[in-house]
């Protein structure tokens, strides 16, 4: 009797403890964003006085160092464009490597993997020079190119997934006269929704998270040209952190909204057993 109840309770208590550890910093982020004291509160976990003013400042009082609405718009544009381009690139490359057989395929695959291992931080400087040559520094277009152009190299996980889609599905489509393009768009892509979700989320997150590349590319001192990551990172530099830490927290929370919405929309597609039962016999 008691054993029957204790084990599930323990199981859920354990999970709850884990969740607690994982959520503490997020909770701190949240309560700090509601604090009246602008700097880092080092003595108390919860603020002594509560206010919504930080959000108000974030949205309606852009100043010379913080222009959140413009940052948000820039990052949104970059994120959406990258999302589309990267997802297409990854799916295309994965299909070519997983489902097609052509001369030099394995060599090309190994080459891409080796290429992907070259430290990105190092080639950053060189990318900056290449972009300068093309006249694309200080522009959102340049950032979109940088974030999405190389995305084809990240095909490994997606290819691993395509490898698990039964080849018989593709063969039967071919027997019924489908072209490779049709097999790609009508058979393989509908079957790989979880993978698309994964790729979309990754591609969308990159520009929201990256501040190094953005800082390097966008040299403009005018805050309205920055991305969210750049701007927020700037707010916690030593000279500003005392006056803007709570604003930084508020901004960090607001940034989470588009990303969470994306997760919620995409979670629908985590359907169980996508390939189960697709082929009979």
């Amino acid at each position, binding site marked *: 009797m008691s054993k029957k109840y204790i084990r599930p309770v323990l199981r859920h208590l354990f999970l709850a403890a884990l969740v607690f550890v994982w959520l503490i910093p997020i909770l701190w982020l949240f309560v700090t964003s509601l604090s009246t004291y602008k700097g*880092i509160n080092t003595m108390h976990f919860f603020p002594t006085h509560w206010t919504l003013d930080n959000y108000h400042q974030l949205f309606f009082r852009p100043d010379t160092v913080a222009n959140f609405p413009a940052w948000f718009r820039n990052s949104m544009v970059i994120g959406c464009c990258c999302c589309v381009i990267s997802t297409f690139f990854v799916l295309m490359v994965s299909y070519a490597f997983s489902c097609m057989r052509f001369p030099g395929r394995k060599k090309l695959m190994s080459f891409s993997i080796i290429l992907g291992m070259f430290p990105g931080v190092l080639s950053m400087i060189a990318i900056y020079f290449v972009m300068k040559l093309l006249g694309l520094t200080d522009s959102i277009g340049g950032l979109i190119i940088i974030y999405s152009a190389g995305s084809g190299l990240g095909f490994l996980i997606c290819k*691993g997934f395509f490898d698990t889609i039964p080849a018989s599905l593709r063969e039967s489509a071919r027997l019924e006269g489908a072209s490779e393009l049709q097999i790609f768009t009508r058979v393989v892509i509908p079957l790989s929704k*979880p993978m698309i979700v994964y790729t979309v989320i990754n591609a969308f997150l990159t520009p929201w998270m990256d501040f190094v590349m953005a800082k390097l590319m966008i040299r403009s001192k005018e805050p309205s040209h920055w991305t969210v*990551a750049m701007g927020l990172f700037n707010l916690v530099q030593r000279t500003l952190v005392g006056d803007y830490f709570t604003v930084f927290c508020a901004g960090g929370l607001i940034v989470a909204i588009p990303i969470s919405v994306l997760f919620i929309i995409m979670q629908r597609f985590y359907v169980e057993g996508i390939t189960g039962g697709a082929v009979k016999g």
Partner: protein
Amino acid sequence: MTGKIKNYFAGFAEAVRKGDRWTRSSLLLFGAGYIGRGQIIRGILVQLIQIGFIWFTFGFSAQYMMQLPTLGTVQREETFDPATLAKTVNDYDNSLLILLCGIIGIFFILAYILLFFQNTRRVYGLQKRAEAKEHINSFREDLHTLINEKFYLTLLSLPGLGVLLVNIFPILFMICVAFTNYDKRHQPPTYLFTWVGLENFKTLFTSSQTVTFGYAFIRILVWTMIWAFAATFTTFIGGILLAKFINDRRTRCQKLWRSLFVITIAIPQFVTLLLVGKMFGDYGIVNSICSKIGLTGFLKSIGLVGAGLSYIPFLSKPGWAHVMVILINIWVGVPFQMLSATGILMNIPNDQLEAARIDGASERQIFRKITMPYVLFITGPSLITAFIANINNFNVIYLLTSDYVSTNMKFANSNAKEPDLLITWLFNLTNNHSNFKMASVIGICVFLISAIGTLISFARLIKGNREEDFQ
């Protein structure tokens, strides 16, 4: 391999020997061979490519390629003309531009040569078809092959172009920089830099009174390896176990639990990392809590915290910082791994699990014999990528240890600090100290380590023809 190359050139020689006037004239004018066989549009397109190439080379890149051996000789000089009060700048050389455009120019010439051989062979193939009175594809049919047998060309061309632009050219450029003296004192456009051979590689392995790169390099390399292994291993195992735990039939409200963990992903990494960094700062909130509950005093009494400190140096002393970044990385990485493991766990073919269950396998046996091999097959390659990604894990280290100041002079001399990874070290070298030459050398080392490691494990995982196992 050599046989293949021999065959390739034999085919080319045969094309030259036996080609008719159309084939031979396309040695000079690439499009001629297609136009002569009625493939007008294709011929024009190929011809346009050739013209474009010649225009690019002689109009743009040739001047830079000529200067590649010296990387420029004329230094920038400004002369002030008192009469007109204007500054005039001489026609100076920019080593940077010469190197970059020179590389691009050489790349295009190689591509041109390849196109030349390939084109001649293809045109000769057309000639043979025409002689045998076989069908020659119309332009429409050519396009049709691009979505069928040659669909891979369509798929790979655009991503390939992108990779060329943001990966291959920059990488070639930075590799070249490792053999030059491009640093603070040789910065274009004001100054020139030039080739120095293997000088920088020697510096990297020297430890002397003034040059401490050798000392710092070995220590940072070892720490990078420990970090990459620990970070990959802990998040991978943690993620799979957590996913398994949540997906278990006995767990209620699976979606809720999953979402709670996913919240941590929703907030960008740099925000959470900066935040956690501030929490664990020397005078941060964790420290004030620790001193309130007496933990600081306790750690002092057992000697884990130095006597002169009034706080726990979570992220500011060697040892402490090393352990903390690994722990914080678990916090960052496990939800991600949990999410991708969930997707994979859900996709395990159900019939296999059911068959095992009917045969009387226990849950543990199923996990070990079916779930793990399946998960490993799918995530195996990504595990290697994760390891490589951790060697290059810039964000965690950079954001958490930005306030760290090294007290070890040998580290400080080479602009490094103890919890640095090779990658953050080289970032500091380029960004704050403009030491591009040493950064490139370190970058090449990172690359070699990653490449060798990957090739060894990748060969075992992929080459063993297991691709079709699950198809």
